[in-house]
């Protein structure tokens, strides 16, 4: 050891910044079909290699190959394609609506549609989702009406959340979609509790949760993995590694040191790492994990390796921190394009049909948008009754809230009164 050696502080930095050309040649990408498909009863240790690999099904000739390729009906795949396309069309419309001042904020999931949509297709009705903010595809794939989602984004008179939540923080008990929190990671450990409750009741439904690469550094990620492992909770835990947490690349959350999937091994949670832009791979991995959970074999951690093609949100400008061409250079392509090409390759779809569906979905979204706007927008109203902001703080409105509602002049038939305490 050099006695004159002084310590050096390491601050991770992405390989390329704006003004430079993006380059993903350092990524080791296994070929489609190359990675084995173990039995669902495998332990985390026995399949530890899968946490460092990348499960891929769609090859460069758009064929579904290898042990993870499953015989799936074209009609089923077309439903998945449609849900991804509708998600993208919806995102585009709502992004523009924000730019037009109709709401305060919006977040697209462009490039990540396969993660939510293929997963929703892999779970069963009654399975419970604990999403984060970029899984709108879960709702759309479960045929939840986009009109209801738009009303939430506009905080309008038909918003079931009564104008209380920022745009995209959806909640739908009926769709099995848990209320989204802005405090990242909290849902990850809650999903374990839901799954344990389902097991306690000897139910058949399982839970699934999503977290971003950045938020894996939150304590809830650790709580979830520990508790899911300890209690063999029937839960599928997903890390959506879209490379960016606002302006911080995935290495800032430790992704340069080891894969996010590999985090599972130390907890004894079997882990898979999947090409998140490959609908068939995401679907197959999720089915594998769901089957494990449903068979009392416990939790699975899945890292979905994908790319956030758009800005973090309408408040973000990725041109300030990543190369302009990075999105175009992403080596795993676009999930919609890849599934479309596969369907064309197997003779179940055509370019003309695809173009027609794009036009149809655009029209659906436009027409639904008009109906949503007729129910109100954040800038022009009508909004929910402001008196409702005092409701649901508690099951029964507490006396001090009744007094404050009166003080705010919002009591039905009341008049504003001078300030008064609790």
């Amino acid at each position, binding site marked *: 050891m050099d006695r004159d050696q002084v310590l050096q502080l390491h601050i991770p930095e992405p390989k390329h910044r704006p003004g430079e050309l993006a380059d993903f040649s350092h990524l080791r990408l296994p070929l489609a079909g190359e990675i084995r498909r173990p039995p669902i009863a495998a332990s985390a240790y026995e399949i530890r290699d899968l946490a460092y690999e990348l499960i891929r099904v769609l090859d460069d000739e758009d064929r579904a190959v290898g042990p993870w390729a499953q015989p799936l009906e074209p009609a089923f795949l077309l439903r998945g394609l449609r849900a991804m396309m509708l998600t993208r069309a919806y995102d585009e419309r709502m992004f523009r609506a924000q730019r037009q001042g109709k709401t305060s904020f919006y977040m697209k999931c462009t490039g990540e549609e396969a993660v939510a949509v293929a997963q929703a297709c892999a779970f069963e009705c009654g399975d419970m989702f604990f999403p984060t903010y970029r899984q709108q595809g879960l709702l759309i794939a479960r045929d939840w009406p986009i009109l209801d989602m738009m009303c939430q984004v506009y905080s309008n008179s038909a918003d079931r*959340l009564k104008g209380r939540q920022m745009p995209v923080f959806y909640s739908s008990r009926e769709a099995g979609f848990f209320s989204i929190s802005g405090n990242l990671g*909290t849902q990850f450990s809650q999903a374990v509790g*839901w799954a344990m409750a389902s097991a306690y009741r000897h139910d058949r439904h399982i839970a699934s949760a999503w977290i971003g690469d950045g938020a894996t550094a939150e304590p809830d990620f650790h709580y979830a993995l520990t508790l899911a492992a300890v209690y063999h909770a029937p839960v599928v835990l997903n890390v959506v590694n879209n490379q960016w947490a606002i302006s911080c690349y995935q290495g800032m959350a430790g992704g340069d040191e080891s894969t996010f999937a590999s985090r599972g091994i130390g907890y004894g949670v079997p882990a898979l790492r999947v090409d998140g832009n490959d609908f068939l791979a995401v679907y197959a991995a999720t089915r594998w994990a769901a089957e494990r959970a449903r068979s009392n074999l416990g939790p699975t951690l899945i890292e979905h390796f994908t790319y956030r093609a758009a800005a973090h949100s309408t408040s973000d400008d990725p041109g300030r921190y990543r190369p302009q061409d990075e999105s175009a250079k992403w080596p795993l392509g676009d999930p919609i394009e890849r599934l479309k090409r596969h369907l064309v390759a197997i003779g179940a779809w055509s370019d003309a049909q695809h173009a027609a569906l794009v036009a149809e979905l655009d029209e659906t979204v436009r027409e639904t948008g008009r109906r949503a706007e007729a129910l109100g927008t954040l800038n022009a109203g009508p909004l929910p009754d402001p008196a409702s902001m005092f409701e649901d703080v508690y099951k029964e409105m507490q006396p001090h809230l009744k007094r404050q509602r009166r003080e705010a002049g919002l009591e039905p038939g009341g008049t504003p009164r001078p300030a008064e305490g609790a």
Partner: protein
Amino acid sequence: MAAMNMVQALNSAMDVMLGRDPDVLIFGEDVGYFGGVFRVTDGLQKKYGRERVFDTPITEGGIVALAVGMGAYGLRPIVEIQFADYIYPAMDQLISEAARLRYRSGAEWFAPMTVRAPCGGGIFGGQTHSQSPEALFTHVSGLKTVIPSNPYDAKGLLISAIEDDDPVVFLEPKRLYNGPFGGRPDQPAKSWAGHPDAEVPLEHYRVPLGKANIVRAGQAATVLAYGTMVHVALAAVAECGIDAEVIDLRTLSPVDVETIAASVDKTGRCVIVHEATRFSGYGGELCALVQEHCFYRLEAPIERVAGWDTPYPHAFEWQYFPGPDRVVQALRRVVEA
């Protein structure tokens, strides 16, 4: 009816609820096989099974997160945080999640959980086993905060908390587990034996949340207290002979403003006593409420007796603890003003 100390009364409340409602579960650190470090869940795992009363790893944030998820499923979990001082890792789950779930989901989901935690000093626990963090919870819209002062209330309030569909932080003054404590550590410790509030029905009953209890009627001044300080206040009143009315708040949120205001309107003088630190403490809110409701009836400035604004010092516990001498001084100041 049976004579019970506070530990037994709390245990009885959970026993009754486990027996009545299959959706009730208990979990936390050391609560299962061992029965809890303060023995509050003693015997419950044996009686109801591991699936209903179980141990967790040391993960306060994880414990509350599990309870949120279980509540979303439809269960009614009771969790124990081993010491209130350990609750801080769970604050995100308590504040951002449990307390806000009903509101943010348009009442689609809620968190019908009870979070039990021993609080307060008097056992030489130092700064990490003595704190009274109630004001952190009363500041949070969507949470309810309860602190009992005797076995009868402890059982009835805990049953109300468990049955409540809102999340309840249930703080248990650990110095009162085995007996009432008037704040004089040099005197022999008392047990609950023979105390009227230690006669506890074996069956189900409720003490409603949001209702204070006048534990001593009086005319000369009002003392607002809760938890251990109820007994300190009673001891102080007995020692100084001032005919004070002592109110045990029992529930800090929602607070029983009517009972407080009626008393201060009558006495015109008010002393607020809590063990928690003073600055930005719950006493500040009580002080504001009293002046808002009773300003024109007040005959003297409101007094606050509280823990000093320092961490809880191990060796100087009794210089820190707001004992009866300080309460007596405050009572004298309000009646002599």
